């Protein structure tokens, strides 16, 4: 019974999401990768909001067959409560006529089982994709790293020729698969061949000072967070502003 309900919910949310996207036609930026999706997504949203754009991003880390539609429809999850799902299913219908639907959606895509990415790509058609990094996290359902890489390969191949792929140049596997993209590729990282190169990072009391080389210019960014993942996120935020 539970499985049937879940299947029906999945189908309902999928087609409703497709309808909402068809009506409102937002620019879709997706963030994928095995780590750092949340921070990159939030940084993209912050950067675009600062530019005065009407942007919305996935709440929490909703990035699965149920979570992705909820992100687009901007609804909470009912988790395991039938009562909460009733309300959400009803509210979902109202999103068709939603006013002030954002111009840009920044969505996370998760791949924890073979075929996940292809399914998610039947719901949305992203114009831009960011692949943050690839590690062995979530590898347990895949036969090996190559099978996991195929998921990201499918995402890259789904981008239109007018699209943009933003990819972590410090990850050798990503560097390799980015070569298959039909669209523009913008690389970020410490690697010397990065289009947006991280020249230096200085840890300070109140955060980090980052120096980026991008578009033949050096740019200093000060952030109030700590860790390399925020440095990568800042680089992606800088890139995205030029393309969104």
């Amino acid at each position, binding site marked *: 019974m539970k499985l049937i309900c879940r299947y029906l919910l999945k189908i309902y949310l999928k087609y409703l999401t497709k309808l909402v996207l068809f009506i409102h036609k937002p620019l879709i930026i997706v963030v994928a990768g095995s*780590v*750092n999706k949340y921070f990159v997504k939030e940084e993209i949203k912050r950067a675009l909001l600062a530019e005065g754009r009407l942007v919305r991003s996935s709440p929490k880390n909703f990035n699965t067959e149920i979570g992705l539609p909820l992100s687009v429809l901007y609804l909470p999850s009912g*988790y*395991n409560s039938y009562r909460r799902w009733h309300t959400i299913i009803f509210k979902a219908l109202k999103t068709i006529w939603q006013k002030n639907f954002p111009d840009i959606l920044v969505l996370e895509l998760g791949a924890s089982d073979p075929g996940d990415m292809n399914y998610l790509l039947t719901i949305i058609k992203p114009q831009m994709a960011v692949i943050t990094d690839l590690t062995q*996290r979530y590898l347990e359902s895949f036969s090996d790293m190559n099978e996991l890489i195929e998921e990201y390969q499918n995402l890259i191949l789904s981008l239109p020729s007018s699209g943009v792929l933003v990819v972590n140049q410090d990850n050798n596997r990503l560097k390799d698969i980015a070569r298959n993209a039909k669209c523009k590729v913008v690389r970020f990282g410490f690697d010397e061949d990065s289009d947006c190169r991280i020249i230096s990072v200085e840890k300070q009391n109140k955060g980090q000072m980052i120096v980026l080389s991008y578009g033949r210019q050096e740019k200093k960014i000060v952030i109030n967070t*700590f*860790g*390399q993942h925020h440095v990568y996120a800042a680089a992606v935020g800088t890139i995205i502003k030029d393309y969104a």
Partner: protein
Amino acid sequence: MFERTKNLKLSTIKDIELRASRLPDAISLAQGIPSFDTPACIKRRVEKALKRGVVAKYSLTPGLPELRELIEISLAKENMFYDWQKEIIVTAGSIEAMSSALLALTNPGDEVIVPEPTYTSYLEIIKLAGCQPIFVPLDESLNWQLDPDKLEEKITDKTKVIFFCDPNNPTGTIFSKEQLQKIGSIIEKYNLYAIADEVYKDFVYDSRQLFSLAEIPELRNRVVRVFSFSKAYAMTGWRVGYAHSDESIIQEMLKVHDSLVTCAPVISQYAAMGALEMGDSEVKIFKEQFLKRRELVCKKLDDLNSYFTYIKPDSSYFVFPRLKFAFPNKNKNDGHEKSLSWRFVLDLLKEKQVALVPGAAFGPSGEGHVRINFGRNEKDIIESFARIDKYLQDL
């Protein structure tokens, strides 16, 4: 033999629980266990992890990356910015986090300042680290508040750490932002460290916003903040918590953590992920229930006001009433003849099978009080107080 452990004691709270466990009709309001079961959403997250076959192996020593990411996100919402890769460790409960912090920050012979009454197990882990606890009494007449000037007076050349609980167990006191900022200035002035145990932060019964020393960027390399999933999410049996601080401290703590436990139980780490992903609404429900139970316990204590006086706790799920009567020494030869709170607790347990914790266990200022846990269900609270009432009438 046993040089390191001979002066350690089993925590009084656990000692009382052990005594109560031998009595058939015992009701325990002793150990800080909430009455609730772990929320279904958390169990479901664990079931999913079990089905995926990801719980059988060790995690990385500091914990599952996805959990530490969630912790970083949750901390940022509270104005605390820490790098999940280098500055957050998932531990086997908060006590392991505090033990690792103390062992990393101190050398044998150092002094650790502890505002008291405070959580009983602090004293044992301080002794285990070979350090000397130095007590600073909280002021009962001022709602058990802390006077930072009194704390400063206790500092010597040997002082290394200030170790405190906020909200405080057993008094339920919340330290103000000004008090904490003064402590912050003291640790900077004397080149000290602070360990802040904030496991009851989710149960504050007024509109006050809790402040943490870990929010002050200039103190990030001096403050270790500890949190546990046990209380907030009814997960005491899962033994999972975390600590965060600057990389310079956490990387040292990591060596101790690795020596002690290798990693926190992986199945519990998935439970912790469920808690952070889906547990917020459950915490609100628990808090509403605890608030009702606080009112119930306070009403019961009001009814017994010729025997007890108390300060209504602002937080946690403990009340710490003072005994207003001189209790006779009925249980000789148990080693606790001199302590009023011990005598009362042991006799109450023996006569009426109600377990409370003697205030003496929480430090010198705790003597003459008892700790009552109102995290237990209403039925147990009502029955316990009926027995206490009867017991007092029979005195």
